[in-house]
């Protein structure tokens, strides 16, 4: 714990420097984590709001300093003392682009507990997807420790990771990632198939999930015959089919209009109410606010980690 505390304060001070530099010279806001060709006409969509970040950081610092001294990471009050479902310790993901290094994740530490509904927010290029891929065991961090149920993933083989993904995690991708040539039922069956569930049971369970998302009558159709929102519902059904503890959703509403977005959000909330842990990634603050807890990421670092209510007050 002592060591962790030291690390935390060290990175905190580092962040401060960056924040200062950026606010001093806001016109030179081009950094490694943003598309250099981001157009100036739409600054609020792609450029980082530095005032907001500074405010969030200040609030975090204040709460960490004034709060219980032992607490280095944010732990929701109701989960104090529990074993976290997911533990990320100082996760770095560094992409080497020629001589340049891109720190997509730059020392991220968070704990997520069973039953939480966490939204990870941040501007485009801030490292959300990178983080989600690591949480989903789809990718491995360059350095840092990632534990699921207290088990270190770095020591796991490819096949063990596959089993973790299969049994414990349900993915909802922004691009849906349905198999285009399989019908909806077969798509939803996939996680069960790889879990070795008998055929009849696969069909029955998959059908139940399709019913849940209201697409049971379309089970023999191909994904391409559905609207975006419907496809996303299929991918929700697929994520739920294996009855995983954790649902990971990367921009689940990214490609949808606001009405269908609400619908998809509703599903995620329902799932969470049923006891599943939900981690949702979004660049949209208003959607993030639907979660119980918000983790704000900027330039690959956590700049805010706390309740949605506190976050709402700060922005």
């Amino acid at each position, binding site marked *: 714990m002592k060591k962790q505390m030291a690390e935390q304060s060290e990175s905190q001070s580092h962040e401060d420097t960056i924040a200062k530099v950026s606010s001093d010279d806001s016109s030179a806001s081009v950094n490694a984590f943003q598309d250099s060709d981001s157009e100036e006409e739409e600054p609020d969509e792609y450029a980082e709001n530095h005032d907001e970040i500074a405010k969030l950081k200040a609030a975090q610092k204040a709460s960490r300093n004034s709060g219980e001294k032992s607490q280095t990471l944010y732990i929701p009050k109701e989960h104090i003392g529990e074993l976290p479902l997911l533990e990320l310790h100082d996760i770095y993901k560094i992409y080497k682009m020629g001589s340049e290094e891109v720190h997509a994740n730059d020392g991220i530490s968070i704990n997520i507990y069973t039953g939480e509904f966490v939204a990870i927010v941040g501007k485009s290029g801030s490292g959300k997807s990178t983080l989600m891929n690591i949480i989903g065991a789809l990718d491995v961090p360059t350095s840092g420790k990632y534990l699921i149920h207290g088990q270190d993933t770095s020591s796991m083989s490819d*096949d063990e990771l596959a089993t973790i*993904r299969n049994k414990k995690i349900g993915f909802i991708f922004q691009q849906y990632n349905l198999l285009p040539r399989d019908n909806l039922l077969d798509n939803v069956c996939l996680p069960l198939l790889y879990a070795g569930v008998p055929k009849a049971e696969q069909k029955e369970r998959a059908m139940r999930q399709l019913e849940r998302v209201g697409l049971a009558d379309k089970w023999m159709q191909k994904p391409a015959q559905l609207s975006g929102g419907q496809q996303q519902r299929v991918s929700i059904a697929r994520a739920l089919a294996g009855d995983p503890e954790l649902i990971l959703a990367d921009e689940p509403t990214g490609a949808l209009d606001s009405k269908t977005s609400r619908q998809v959000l509703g599903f995620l909330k329902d799932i969470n109410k049923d006891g599943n842990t939900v981690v949702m990634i979004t660049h949209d603050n208003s959607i993030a606010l639907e979660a119980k807890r918000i983790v704000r990421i900027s330039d690959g670092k956590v700049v805010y980690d706390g309740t949605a209510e506190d976050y709402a007050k700060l922005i």
Partner: protein
Amino acid sequence: MLNSFNLALKSIWSNKMRSFLTMLGIIIGVAAVIILVGIVNGEMSYMTSSFASMGTNRITVNVTNLSSRSVSVDQMYDFYSDNEEYFTYLSPTVSVNATVKVGNENSDQTSITGVSEDYLDIMDYDLEKGRFIQYADIAARQKVAVIGLYVAQTYYETAEKAIGQRISVNGTKYQIVGVVERQTSSSDEMSEGGSDDFLYIPYTAAVKLTRNGTINNYTFTLRDSYVEKASTVTSVIEDFLYSIFKNDDLYRVTAMSELLDSMNDMIAQMSLMLGGIAGISLLVAGVGVMNIMLVSVTERTREIGIRKALGAKKSTILMQFVIEAAVTSSMGGVIGIVIGCIGTTMAGKIMNIDAQPSFGWIIASFTISMSIGLIFGYMPARSAATLNPIDALRSD
């Protein structure tokens, strides 16, 4: 395993176009090889059999008689009777260029040969009607003739009616004493200048019709025990002729069986070349299959990414892809074999040869196309399955 099998079948079914194109490559390759080999083998066996029907037990002797040095019929017959252990028959063969006339009709294409009484046995022919030329006819230079069935039927309606009739050779009348059985195969029409349009007369009579009045060609037949050792006998004949001519340019001794041997060599070379052509067509088919597999690799990489993200193990994915490739290419192979066999039989019918699919080539082409399918189905899948799921997902 069963899972992978089901997945593979489903994948083949849901990617009908791709599976079909893959199969098509293999179908064409396999069928082409089988048909090609079948036709050429049929052609070759046809050649061999028509060659064999010319008599592998024959030795032909061709001499150039000079006024100073020559071999006479009597010398030849003496040699023949001195070496009876080798030979069964001997006949001089005198080709005559003369006009054959029946009544007022010319028969230009009819070949005229002067032969001995043994000639019918040498050719292994049977008579339709009448008798063959006899020793007495030869000794007495009788003006008798034995004709082919085409001549008989064309000018006398039937073989029966031809017997006893007269036929004119360069104005000299010959009496027809016999008609040889039909030689043209039953599936073909007898034709002018064909295998039944001939006329045999005693060689003693024929010699008179040639320009220089000498006999230049002889045909021996070998005893069965010497057919395999034809070269021994040829050298005996050559020694005999050398003793007379003192110059080996003046005679030529040819054993049919040796000719057959050299033809078999040629055929072997042809099959080898054929193998090359077949190999190339398989290779072309293989490249086609490879192309399709590689083109679909992006789509497949994404698919592999999705499957891995949902918890598929590398081994499960590879198994699916290997089974898929194996099923596709073996199905293509089987269809190719069926089409190849049907095609071979049909081509054989059309070309009027006995074309048969070769078992060895069926196995070879099937194995090769199967391996091509397996290798090119497996390799891209393996590299994709080794990727991080996220890298596989990201590919497009």
